[in-house]
């Protein structure tokens, strides 16, 4: 097989196929594997995996590991890629990694009866999209020869009527050559200012660190780390009482809870050894009957809560002019809705 598959030195490549004697593709796949290995060189890696092992999970492919996945490259292109396989291949690819995929497709739907080839080119593209690939391009230029179809029928599909099947299918089956990519996020035109050149010394050496791109769009079920495992022993500690107290206090003054109902928040005396027990209702301050003769200790009663002292009987009421009757419905307060 002519090496029409090009890879770069240093890349990690996954070659996947249904290699079998029946498919008569062992030699071609071996030659392809050698060609890929030579191209990636000693810094790169070429792994081979049987499609069936990927399908049933036995292959245990590393996530986000491969720069390129080449699947089903050799005659007779015996694989119809299931959604399970496509999902596994997507996971194994690095973000922005490339997929090169071949598959037999029908020229239009239903033109062969009773054969494992069921998809048209459009349906194959749709399957790739559903699996999460982007930048999908498919070309179908090659019609599959009858001889190849017979090999498929006998060697791969186990059909006793392989010859008849091949004759019927001839002319209707094409080789779809698909290229696609695992999504990456394009940082785009946002002007990234250079990190303070003075601070370059603190930044890690760039070296061979590849620019990493990520699929930021999809928020659905990606595998995540266990967040509880992140914490270390020292994170579980809480500060001791002495460190929280005002210097000079033995221990911190007990603070009322944010929704205190025991009276501590309203300045009441509470026995600190007694736990905060919910009272039936918060104490309501007494309402003065007469505001005409305001007896103010501080002189601020009419000014509004911002200036009133904490024992002021007018707390909770708006500002008023001394001598004026206080009514609700002052400048901004309306009784439009009583719960």
């Amino acid at each position, binding site marked *: 097989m002519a090496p029409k598959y090009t890879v770069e030195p240093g890349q990690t490549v996954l070659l996947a196929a249904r290699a079998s004697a029946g498919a008569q593709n062992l030699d071609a796949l071996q030659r392809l594997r050698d060609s890929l290995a030579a191209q990636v060189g000693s810094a790169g890696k070429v792994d081979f995996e049987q499609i069936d092992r990927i399908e049933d999970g036995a292959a245990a492919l590393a996530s986000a590991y491969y720069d390129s996945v080449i699947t089903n490259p050799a005659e007779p292109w015996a694989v119809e890629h299931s959604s399970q396989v496509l999902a596994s291949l997507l996971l194994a690819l690095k973000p922005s990694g490339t997929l090169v995929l071949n598959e037999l497709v029908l020229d239009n739907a239903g033109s062969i009866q009773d054969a494992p080839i069921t998809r048209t080119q459009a349906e194959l593209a749709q399957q790739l999209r559903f699996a999460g690939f982007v930048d999908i391009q498919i070309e179908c230029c090659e019609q599959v020869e009858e001889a190849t179809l017979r090999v498929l029928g006998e060697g791969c599909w186990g059909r006793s009527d392989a010859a008849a099947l091949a004759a019927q299918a001839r002319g209707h089956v094409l080789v779809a050559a698909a290229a696609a990519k695992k999504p990456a996020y394009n*940082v785009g035109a946002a002007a990234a200012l250079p990190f303070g050149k003075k601070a370059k010394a603190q930044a890690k050496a760039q070296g061979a660190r590849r620019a990493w791109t990520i699929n930021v769009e999809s928020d659905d079920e990606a595998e995540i780390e266990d967040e509880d495992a992140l914490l270390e022993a020292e994170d579980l500690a809480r500060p001791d009482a002495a460190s929280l107290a005002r210097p000079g206090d033995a221990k911190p003054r007990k603070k009322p809870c944010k929704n205190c109902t025991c009276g501590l928040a309203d300045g009441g005396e509470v026995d600190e050894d007694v736990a905060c027990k919910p009272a039936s209702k918060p104490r309501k301050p007494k309402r003065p009957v007469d505001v005409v003769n305001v007896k103010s200790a501080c002189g601020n009663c009419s000014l509004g809560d911002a200036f009133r002292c904490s024992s002021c009987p007018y707390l909770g009421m708006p500002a008023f002019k001394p001598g004026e009757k206080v009514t609700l419905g002052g400048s901004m307060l309306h009784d439009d809705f009583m719960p």
Partner: protein
Amino acid sequence: MPGPDGDRRLLVLYGSQTGYAKDTAQRIARQGWRRHFVVQVQAMDQADRAAVFAATCPVIFVCSTTGQGDEPDNMRRFWRFLLRKSIPHDALGNVAFAVFGLGDSSYQKFNFAAKRLFRRLTQLGAQPIVDRGDGDDQHYLGVDGALDPWLAGLWAELLSRFPLPRPIIPDSVAPDPSFDVEFAAGSLNDSNAQDAPDPDGHPALLVAADRLTAAEHFQDVRCFRFELEAPGPAPLWGPGDCAVLRPANQAQDVSAFLAAMGWADNADAPLRVAARNPVGLPERIPGVTTLGWLFTYYFDITAVPRRSFFEMLYYFSANDDEKERLREFSATEGQDELHTYCMRPRRTIMEVLDDLPHSRVPVGYIFDVFPEIAERSFSISSAAEVTPSLVELTVAIVGYKTLMHKPRVGLCTRWLANMPLGQRVHLRFARGTMQLPNDPATPVIMVGPGTGIAAFMSFIRQRRSDGARSNYLFFGCRGRETDFLHQRHLEEWVDDGSLSLFCAFSRDQDHKIYVQQRIREHGDLVWSLIGEQGAAVYVSGNANRMPDDVRQAFTDVVREHSGGSDESAAAYILAMTKAGRYQEECWQ
């Protein structure tokens, strides 16, 4: 576009549940501005993830931890993303960062969200600028006890990397406004649309608003029904999902507010708003608008102001006494007093401004002082596959007393309660966290006291439609005759055999009975369901102690029926949780 300070950029990302961490993030941003940095502030979930990963400027994370030790809602998605196994461990190798956590050491999971974030960021290769700061409400100075020294250390380090080009702008100088806001000439045609257009929203009309609780009961719980105007062919929501609404202010509040601010005459004058920095205008703000529109649909004038409000108001105060009070409320030592004055009684912005009549915000600074009206989510009680155009919500109208003479009300629930039938709203849909099992044969146990029942109504409706009849509901409320929500529907479903219902009416007898007791009473059945039939358990409702008490009840049932110990029973429930068979959705 880089200006003369082109290299001096900071990104501040926050995760905030009640607004405290967001306010802190904005304060840090203003301090950065004083040191001649260009600072961008965003919620973590809104950040451009690729930009964060490729960040060439320092990134400062500010995050609080909820009462149950979890991340705040607006960093959940970002956090899940950060946890992905597929992220290489040097992905953040070029990112300099710092983390400050807002927490409370009276909780066992003290600052866990910030601690986890810090660990994961370093795991991914990011470089800490300073140690993590652990703010603690229990400190005598509150969170500031840790924040003040942490900020001092942070600025010292940042200024050594980015030396000051000019002296620091002192605190006495008001910060620049974020936007240019100016009155324009002429008038607007049709300026005040009835409702704010929302490209994401689905238009719906309010068709019913029925009270579910008895008239004499202190709590008003309503069933709001919205009819979608264009439901489309596919279901717009699934069981357990939420409707997201953005409320508006009441018209009379807006008039009173504008009058008090001296803006009544200009309420409808066209106002031009333009961005001053590259971030641009928030999507919701039209470039030309009016004060009337903004204070009806955009600004939350019934919100309880945060520390920043008092810090900013200081610059616009024309009275020495008020100025001094504002300065006290802005200082570290004044935070306890600010809490007593403002947060504890839930004093609103309008009420604060009433107390400080000589302190008024100029129009140019409204975007820096007033908070934005936030969306609210409500679990949907109807099932889209059964009634595709009907969105039904079970809502408790918020009203309560503090020391303020005037009772407190909720902005959104008041907006709903006052809404006339036939009014159009725009709904968005958001996925809930609870998911029904795929297999309709799996039994489902739901524990939903009070308004926790809302999501379970959609669960049960969906299950019945799927032919799934193994449905068990533990419901609790105060009284059979007072707040037995959706009683008629539930009893119908019991009668036709599609629901087994266990109720706890806490005040109907001398001693209190809650749902957790019912779970224990029916231990045999519960064990058979979860231990032998693979049932999934769902708990929904008001947080506080209920979820823990319910979990303890299930643990006790497991322990008694499996013959194991407390530890093995707790481990059993934990395993169920990790397998998605024990799910909770509770709110403060």
